[in-house]
């Protein structure tokens, strides 16, 4: 396997049910390559799914992405390494995200719960990989030539339409965090809108073939970094009839690879 710099594509697309009722896309995401003096390139993927039942969850999801990213940037600016990340530190970041949402809610004269959203984050350094999750959706990583595995199974309650949001104190207590002392070369993150396309609930497995087909265009990108043109194609794909026949919810898909040839 030959490696290269991180290539990333990411997109959100409004669900057909939202388009019908004029509700905006309530998913938000942020992809970035951050240069760390001590570690080199660090890829960051964040996706937030705003609650359908919350009035301003589109605003909440966007703000949560940006706030989480800036917490990581500050951490790296202070000279910390990804391997020094702990659950306690991540909890601090999540509390900061909630504080930012709270401040926004207060400024708007609204309730915190009106900004409810989930949060998925993958932080990938050349030597370490960290993952954070509150709620549903999932992150998956390539484990072998053929096989993809999930990092955390989506957090649903007994019922498939119930999940956890960062705005609920009890949900925040159940956040998932994993730090692995190994590099990950390919990763994808997605919100619950496409869960049923790419996860098999019956067997708790990932639809590996689907991801195997999605990654080659990312690997083939000329330049490292987040590619706008390919991201735009991803929007088109996520809005296509083939995808919309299977889900009418908002959907976000982030793809990142540092594999040149498998």
């Amino acid at each position, binding site marked *: 396997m030959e490696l290269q710099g991180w290539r990333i594509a990411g997109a959100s697309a409004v669900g057909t049910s939202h388009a019908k009722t004029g509700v905006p896309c309530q998913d938000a995401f942020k992809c970035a390559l951050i240069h760390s003096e001590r570690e080199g390139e660090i890829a960051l993927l964040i996706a937030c799914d705003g609650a*359908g*039942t919350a009035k301003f969850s589109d605003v909440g999801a966007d703000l949560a992405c940006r706030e989480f990213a800036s917490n990581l940037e500050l951490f790296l600016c202070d000279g910390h390494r990804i391997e020094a990340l702990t659950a306690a530190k991540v909890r601090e970041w999540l509390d900061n995200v909630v504080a930012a949402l709270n401040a926004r809610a207060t400024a708007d004269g609204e309730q915190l719960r009106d900004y409810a959203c989930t949060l998925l984050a993958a932080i990938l350094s050349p030597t370490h990989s960290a993952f954070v999750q509150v709620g*549903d959706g999932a992150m998956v990583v390539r484990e072998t030539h053929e096989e993809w595995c999930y990092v955390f199974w989506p957090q649903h309650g007994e*019922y498939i339409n*119930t999940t956890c949001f960062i705005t609920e104190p009890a949900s925040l207590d159940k956040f998932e965090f994993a730090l692995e002392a190994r590099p990950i070369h390919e990763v994808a993150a997605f919100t619950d809108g496409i869960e049923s396309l790419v996860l098999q609930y019956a067997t708790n497995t990932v639809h590996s073939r689907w991801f195997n087909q999605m990654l080659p265009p990312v690997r083939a990108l000329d330049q490292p970094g987040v590619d706008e043109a390919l991201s735009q194609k991803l929007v088109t794909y996520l809005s296509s009839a083939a995808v919309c026949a299977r889900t009418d919810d908002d959907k976000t898909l982030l793809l990142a690879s540092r594999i040149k040839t498998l």
Partner: protein
Amino acid sequence: MTTDLEQVPFNATEFIENPENRCPCVLVLDTSGSMQGRPIAELNEGLAQFKSELLTDEMAAKRVEVAVVGFGPVQVLAPFATPDVFVPPTLNASGDTPMGAALTQAVQMVDVRKQEYKQFGIAYYRPWIFLITDGAPTDAWQSAAATLQDGVRQKRFQFFAVGVQGANMEILKQIAPPERPPLMLKGLQFRELFSWLSNSLSAKSRSQVGNEEAVPVENPVSPTGWATV
């Protein structure tokens, strides 16, 4: 001793052919003698229309599952089925009103269905139990009501009660959980009721909510709605 084979119902194919999430709803329908004539005819038409409306929604057609329990006497008139295979039974009005036993039957069906979903790895939504009656129970309904309210509190299912003209609303109020009191159908607006139910189930079958719950449903108690309090 029972074997696994005996416990597994032979319905694996429906879940293999359609692994979509399921949104189950049991209709508990009063088919006692007092429903005879126009009420039972309108209810039958409403039920047929319910199926066709669910079918117009691509997602609901794969996800909503309808079962029907009739009472007078208690019988399962239709087992759980998605709208494409659901056959609306033709209801005949006769007999007394064993509402308590019918509700107990509905609660059991919901529990069994959940076990089947789990067994086949099918994700599901909180079931709905939907009662329509024009009378008063003729059996011992108190313990059924207690079980029902327990289930609602434990979020095992949601319960809706609708009284048709002539229904004993006082008893329905004791059966229904206090946070969702029974509604009174305006006239014989069964079609409007089933339209609302189809819309609500369609919305539910694609919803995502937090622990706070509450899938927004259109308020049926409005000047244009089908119900009064």
